[in-house]
C-alpha cells in the first residue's frame, strides 16, 4: 500500500508545481504588453470553456441541466447575488427533474 501513498504524493506535486511557478516568476513589472493583455482575457476564456459543454452533463440529464442553466443565466442577467444564482440553478434543475 506504500505505492498508493507515493501516487498521491506524485499527484500532489504535479498539481502544485504548475500552480506555483507563475506566481514566483511573473510580476507586474517587465511583462510584455501583449502577454499582459492575453492574461487579462484568460479568466473569461477559462469560464467559457468550463461552462460549456460541461454544464449539459452536470445533472446526469440534459433537460434538467438546461432548465438549471437557463434559470442561472436569467438570475445572473438580473444581477442578483451569486448565491441566489446558484440556489436558483439548483432549484430549477431539481424541480424540472421532479416534474418529468
Amino acid at each position, binding site marked *: *500500500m506504500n505505492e*498508493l*501513498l507515493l*501516487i*498521491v*504524493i*506524485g*499527484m*500532489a506535486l*504535479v*498539481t*502544485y508545481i*504548475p*500552480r*506555483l*511557478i*507563475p*506566481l514566483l516568476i*511573473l510580476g507586474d513589472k517587465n511583462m510584455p*504588453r*501583449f502577454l499582459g*493583455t*492575453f*492574461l*487579462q*482575457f*484568460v*479568466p*473569461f*476564456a*477559462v*469560464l*467559457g*470553456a*468550463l*461552462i*460549456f*459543454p460541461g*454544464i449539459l452533463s*452536470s445533472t*446526469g440529464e440534459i433537460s*434538467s*441541466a438546461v432548465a*438549471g*442553466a437557463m*434559470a*442561472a443565466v436569467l438570475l*445572473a442577467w438580473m444581477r*442578483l447575488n*451569486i*448565491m441566489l*444564482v*446558484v440556489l*436558483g*440553478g*439548483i432549484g430549477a*434543475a*431539481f424541480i424540472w*427533474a*421532479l416534474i418529468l
Partner: protein
Amino acid sequence: MENSKVNFNQDRFSAYLKPCSQGLKASVPIAVGYIPIAITFGLVAKSSGIPDHIALLMSFIVFAGASQFVGVNLIALGTNPWEIILTTFILNLRHFLMTASLSLRIDPSVSRTWRFLIAFGVTDETFTVASLQKDKTLSPFFITSLNMLAFLAWNAGTWAGIFLASGLPASLQASMGIALYAMFIGLLVPSLKESRPILLVVLISIAINSVLFWIPLSAGLSAGWRIILSTVLAALTAAMIFPAGIGGDKNE
C-alpha cells in the same frame, strides 16, 4: 493615546480583517458547490476500494476535483503509477495559465511565503471568483481566506462522503451537480453585459471547446487539454483584436 489606538485598529481592520471577511463571503458559493461533489468523491473512493486514508490525503494535498476522480478511477483499475501522475499533470496544467493571470493582480511586494500559500489553493473556482473581483490588486489575505474556505469545504465533504455515506437524497445530489456551473454563470454574465471584448473571448472559447468536444478528430483529447487549448486560442484572438484589453472597446 486613545486616538492612535483607534487608528491602529482601523488600519489593522482594513489591512487584513476586511479582506479576510470579504474572501470568506466570496467563497460561500464555492463551498456550497464543493460539498456535494466532495461527498460524491468520498463515496466513489470508498466504493472503488480505495483505503480511507488515501482518499482523505488526496483531498488534503492534491485539492483538485476532476483529477481526484480520475486518479481514484485509475488506481482502482490498477493503472501504472506514472501514467496516473502524468494524467493528473495534464489535467491540472491549466492552473499554470490561471496563476499566470492571477500574478498580475497580486502586488509585486507580496512575499514568497504568501505566494507558496496562495498557489496551493488555486482551483478553477477560486481562480475565477478571485479574478472577477472589481479591485485591480487583490490582497493576499483575501485570496487566502477565499481559498481556505473552499479547501475546508472540500475536505469536510470528503470526510462526510467516506464516513457518513450519502445523507442527501440522490435526486437532490444530482441537481446539485449544477451548482458550480451556476456559480460560473453568475460570475460571467454581468461582465458579458459590460464589455464587448469579454463577450467575444467567451464566445470564441465556447465555440472552440464545443468543436473539440464534439468532433471525432479530437475525441481522445482530455478535458484538461480542451480547456487549455480553448483558453489559449480564445485569449490570443481577443488580445489581437482588442490590444487595449477587456475595457478595449470603450477607449476607441
